[in-house]
């Protein structure tokens, strides 16, 4: 009825030889065998390193910081400017490398803040249940009732257009998803006896949460966080596109598309390369998330418990 998936090889000899094989070993093992995962990792590393070492990589670091070069306005891609120049004559590739700084930073910061707020709240809510759970869930209801981009726009404009405020505004809309996710995971963990066993021994609740609950919810959180890095970059770009967020002369991908769209039909390279950068990075994070999920799922990894 169903097709037979190709058999994977797993370090069965290691298991037999008594080497310590943890969940993470198995995940890494499966992950390495996924070509798309490795490709996306390479793309991401490229962008991240490019952003960090931008001043050393480009011959026009001053243009990356915003200095105009009006003599070379709108030159199409050529040897000196691989991706052409923008309306102020700045090298587009340089602007993209520099713009990666804010876009990637938004992605990482938003996800980190959302995880730091959302995960503990979800664990507490799911573990304690009762009125605490009710309160936390109703609060997430309220936040999730807003269209996230709009809430971010409203907040960012209340706080004033800037990189930090964009970051705060997006994080504000993001954490409830983690609360929901971790709460659901915690509820299913509570059904398992090892939590009861710890409680019956008298392990304090905070310790059960930190040592039993949180480590066991980390895998789905990791998967979600990886995908959300892409999602947050997308929303960050949208906020910048609208005109909130990083302000010129600092470079930012969303802002570059926003300015470049006016010239796009005649001179597509400017807005196009910035948009493509957003697309590639988001795509890579999504592929990576997929791969992490597949690697974490024993069904796709096809691990049979050998001991049983």
């Amino acid at each position, binding site marked *: 009825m169903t097709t*037979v998936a190709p*058999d994977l090889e*797993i370090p069965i000899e290691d298991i037999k030889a008594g080497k310590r094989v943890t969940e993470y070993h198995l995940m890494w093992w499966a992950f390495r065998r996924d070509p798309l995962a490795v490709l996306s990792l390479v793309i991401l590393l490229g962008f991240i390193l490019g952003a960090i070492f931008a001043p050393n990589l480009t011959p026009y670091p001053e243009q990356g910081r915003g200095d105009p070069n009006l003599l070379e306005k709108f030159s199409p891609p050529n040897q000196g400017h691989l991706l052409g120049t923008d309306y102020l004559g700045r090298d587009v590739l340089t602007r993209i490398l520099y713009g990666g700084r804010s876009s990637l930073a938004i992605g990482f910061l938003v996800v980190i803040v959302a995880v730091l707020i959302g995960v503990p709240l979800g664990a507490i809510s799911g573990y304690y249940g009762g009125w605490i759970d009710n309160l936390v869930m109703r609060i997430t209801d309220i936040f999730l009732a807003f269209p996230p981009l709009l809430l971010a726009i409203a907040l960012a404009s209340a706080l004033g257009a800037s990189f930090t405020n964009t970051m705060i505004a997006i994080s504000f809309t993001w954490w409830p998803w983690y609360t929901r996710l971790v709460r659901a995971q915690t509820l299913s963990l509570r059904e398992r006896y090892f939590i009861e066993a710890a409680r019956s021994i008298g392990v304090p609740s905070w310790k059960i949460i930190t040592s039993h609950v949180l480590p066991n919810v980390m895998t789905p959180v990791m998967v979600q966080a990886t995908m959300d890095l892409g999602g947050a970059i997308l929303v960050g770009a949208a906020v910048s596109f609208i005109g909130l967020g990083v302000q010129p002369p600092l470079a930012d991908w969303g802002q570059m598309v926003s300015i470049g769209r006016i010239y796009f039909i005649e001179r597509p390279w400017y807005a196009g390369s910035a948009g493509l950068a957003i697309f590639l990075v988001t795509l890579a994070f999504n592929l990576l998330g997929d791969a992490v999920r597949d690697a974490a799922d024993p069904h796709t990894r096809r691990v*049979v418990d*050998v001991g049983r």
Partner: protein
Amino acid sequence: MNAPLLAIEDLHVHFNTYAGTVRAVNGVSFEIRSGEMFGLVGESGCGKTVTGLAIMRAIPSPGRIMKGRIFFQGEDLITKSESEMRDIRGGRIAMIFQDPTASLNPVFTAGYQISLQITQHRHVSKKEAKQLAFDMFSEVGLPHAKSIYNTYPHELSGGMQQRVMIAMALASGAELLIADEPTTALDVTIQAQILALLSQLRESEGLTILLITHDLGVVAETCDRVAVTYDGHIVESGTVDDVLYQTKHPYTQGLLAALPDTVRHKQSLEVIKGSVPDGLHSVSGCSFHPRCPKVMDICLDQPPSLIIVGEKEHSASCYLYMEETA
């Protein structure tokens, strides 16, 4: 003696996993006669459920029937096409499972599910199907058939759900019912109800039942004949009286001795040392030899075959009895 309704010959089912080939069923042969209740008994991982699924030709994904023949009313099921099998599944052979809650579709009423089953296999109108469903419900002892018809599974108790499953299984006139641990998830008093129902259906409908179970007590009380499986093959088979009370194979003996009700209160139970092989690492010779208290040299290299060891085709696969019969 009746001709066999179902005859399985040298069935092998293997699962190809990353870790290697798991030989879940490794040379199973037995016959079920028309109208009897046949017990297939064994511990977890002995291949009894896979045997049941193999009869249905419904082995899940990495598994394959490697070898063997399955004759149902004289026809080999292995050679049937998928569409011929679809008529046989549910139409002539039906199967019920351990967990009725999971086996019933939660978003359809019991009535819808049984009607779908009936119209699938019989050319009847919707109205006739509904009447048939009512009849089946009362036949399996569900009161108020009309209200059950419009009930969702989650509104029924476990025992009632299993009755609905049985009604669905029999609705299209199956002759053979494969019941895979049908009472394991149920309470003792409900188990008694369901077992009584199965016995009654056998009498009234002439239903043949293959009862797959781990519980020797259930076998003792309900079955006519029984086969004991170990590591994917049959170690002993015969009438229930012969196998359970004239026990020949050391494994069956060990299983019986491990039952708490066979031993006096508070005394130690007999224990079979070690644990069941995983089907992945094949054991040379008789696969029970590492755990056998009566192991001999010959057991280590040649697997024994099933031979007659007593009356009424009481057979066992054990070298202890080879000389006697030879």
